[in-house]
């Protein structure tokens, strides 16, 4: 029986076995490839999406266990209408290879929703599960602080 999911505000009926991780539903079934496969064991954060606003590793959530509305990087903002956090990433020229950045941004967006002005220590705490092999961490930190400022102005 197909499983119904709401992804970025759109309802989808997914005809895949229950145990298929949300990551692979998004990428190979729905065609939302912004969410990335990095490790499959929740050790890198590249697959981070939000379920009801909470940042989760989509490689660890089985299709049948998805408990709420899914937001992916594509749902956060599009190139012509970026979310403030995405704009901060562009302003700080954060990405190098960029592969981990969808996950970094989804994690950071969840952090800012919960804590509008995180300290460096709070950023470390929230973001240390997100690996970046290019080493963009200093700019990620700067972009989060800058997005926090912009969100407060709004």
């Amino acid at each position, binding site marked *: 029986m197909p499983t119904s999911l709401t992804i970025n505000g759109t309802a989808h009926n997914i005809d895949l076995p229950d145990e298929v991780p949300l990551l692979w539903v998004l990428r*190979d079934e729905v065609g939302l490839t912004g969410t990335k496969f990095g490790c499959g064991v929740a050790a890198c954060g590249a697959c981070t999406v939000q379920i009801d606003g909470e940042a989760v590793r989509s490689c660890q959530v089985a299709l049948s266990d998805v408990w709420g509305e899914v937001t992916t990087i594509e749902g956060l903002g599009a190139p012509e209408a970026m979310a403030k956090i995405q704009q901060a990433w*562009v302003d700080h020229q954060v990405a190098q*290879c960029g592969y981990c950045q969808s996950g970094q941004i989804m994690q950071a967006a969840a952090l800012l929703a919960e804590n509008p002005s995180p300290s460096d220590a709070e950023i470390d705490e929230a973001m240390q599960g997100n690996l970046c*092999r*290019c080493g963009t961490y200093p700019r990620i930190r700067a972009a989060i602080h800058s997005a926090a400022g912009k969100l407060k102005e709004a």
Partner: protein
Amino acid sequence: MASVGKILRRTFLIGSAAVVGGVAFGAYYVSRPAPNPLQPQEGEAALNPFVLIDQQGITLFAPRAEMGQGVMTTWAALIAEELDVELEQVRVLHGPAAAAYYNSALLGEGLPNKGYDISDFQHNLGEALGVFGKVLNLQITGGSTSMRDGFERMREAGATARETLKQAAANRLSIARDQLRTENGAVIAPDGTRIPYTDLAVAAGQIDPPEVALRDPSDWRLLGKSLPRVDMVGKATGTAEYGIDVRPEGSKFASVRTNPKLGGEMKSFDASDAESMPGVEKIVDLGDGVAVVASNTWLAMQAVEAINVDWGDAPYPPETDGLFDAIGAAFEGKANSTMRDDGDVGTMPEGATEVTAEYRLPYLAHATMEPMNATAIFTGKTLELWTGNQAPTVIRSKVAKVANLDPEMVTVHTPYMGGGFGRRLEYDYAVIATKVAMALPNVPVQVTWSREEDMRHDFYRPGAMARMRGAVKDGKALLLDGQISAQSVLYQAMTRMGAPAGGPDKILVEGAFNQPYAIPNYRIRGYIADLAVPVGSWRSVGNSFNGFFHDTFLDEMAHAAGRDPLEFRLELMKSEHAPSAGCLEAVREMSGWTGKTPDGVGRGVGFTYSFGTPVAQVIEVVDEDGTIRISKAWIACDMGLALDPGTVEAQMVGGMIYGLSAACFGEVTFADGEVEQYNFPDYDAIRIHNVPETEVRILETNRHMGGAGEPGTPPSMPALGNALFDLTGQRARSLPLSHSFDLLV
């Protein structure tokens, strides 16, 4: 349209060709008419564009692979600078695999000089030797060469296109070309009328490009400034397309397993369990491995894991200790190279203190964030391939052979790469995808490796050992005699390319023989350990181990001489290479280096000259209740000309962090012939909570342009080890440091 004959007769490197509705400017394959060492084959005389203008707009081609280093933006900026277009208004594409996109700088690196002592004559000779890159069809992104390679040629491409467009406008307006100027994608007439390039493109296609002079750097609008990267919005919105995101209509998804005893045979397999698993459509026997094609990548991964395979043994000693025994034993054989032999290292200077040390560094994986993957469709007559790669012409010839096709029938697309670091110089992932696609003709198949498959089937940074001997007297270094033993990355790469391997391997000793120190008795010898563990280029290649060996040993010599380690290096460097000394002086000033640190704080300096760029780093560590944290780092580099300082800064910081990750945690070990590390929990890296606060200074005094992508990596490892020595008094002679120090993880 220019005929092939006309193209071949042209003497321009940069030519033009009419295309539908417009014009293309670019390079012709071996375009100079004489002496021409090659007989161009049919199809190879085609122009490969750097600039394409048609009714749809302006497209710039940056045929160097974007793996995070910003090459696409800076390469496009070289063209845009002379063409007078803004990067926001043009499309930037990688373009196809093509001989005309050869890397002229890379083979210049093969000259047997130290680099920093290069004369203008040798520099020109290097440029001339670079032509072999063209002859060998090497379209390669590597060796930190892209800017050195593209600097002249791409500005010429832009300038030639600009002047040809101006000529088209001059013809239309019946005035002289020099009465026109260009701005923002248009030719401007004396009365201020704007004629967009797109309106002139068809006419420009009929004009032979004029000879042009390049603009003076003082007139540059774009180069030398930090530009917004053309890939940034895509990467912030999840819309940038990586190889793993390619989805041709009707795609199937596959995963693969090959022998974890690397290079061993596949004796047999039993896929009966896998065949009936959900979503499985086909089991493919690859000869040396097995793949499963399914409706979903995850289902394919589950099924391929369920196949029982009988693997043959590894063709190398199965345990780590056995491998290092062989690496150590190579010291007893004949040296492969003695690339530096100054003075007399055989005699210990009278009254000098002898210093000796042995070092050992592990095999390392690249661990790119994007696991290896490739997508292919095979029709029987053609093969189309999408895969992140650093060498599309090599990939094309390799997969053509596998598919038994003429290379002309193979199209290689190069999407963004989720990291390269040298891993994507190989072609194994493309060959696997080709074999799977051949088993399902006319169906596009994407083959994605699990992280475990990726980690355990790499072309590793070779494990390496060094035996160092030195002498100090009256606070000065009098003698340095270094021996380095490792597998040869170069020999293996040559063999895989079908070229004979032999001769002195410069890469094996780079970062040791070519360091700018005036030590009177100075010898560096390289020894090749003949082992079959797959090894490859890992960000900075030989420098990645020699940087640690050489610089750590200099630190040991400084302490033995009772000198401040920074001043000790600086004194030896000043007369040898001023830009290198400038980098050390810069980090001394930036860090407020005094040679003294309070209790609980340690500082170390590291220096490596690599890829034409000297880089000095100071790293500070702090003891926080018994846990050691890397708190700060200062970096100074001098690549002569920093075309995009923002990108250079990012590469310096990123290169250092890549090195620190390896220094702290990186280690690939073997048991029963198999790599023991499976995934990031076994092969971790620096993360946001343990990354140092970093400051970068970019100097521009070097006479020749150096690279940016790799030189930040080598000095980070010794700098950290030297800082830990300052903090604890314990000398790190092997890595990773997490084995011997309580680092913050």
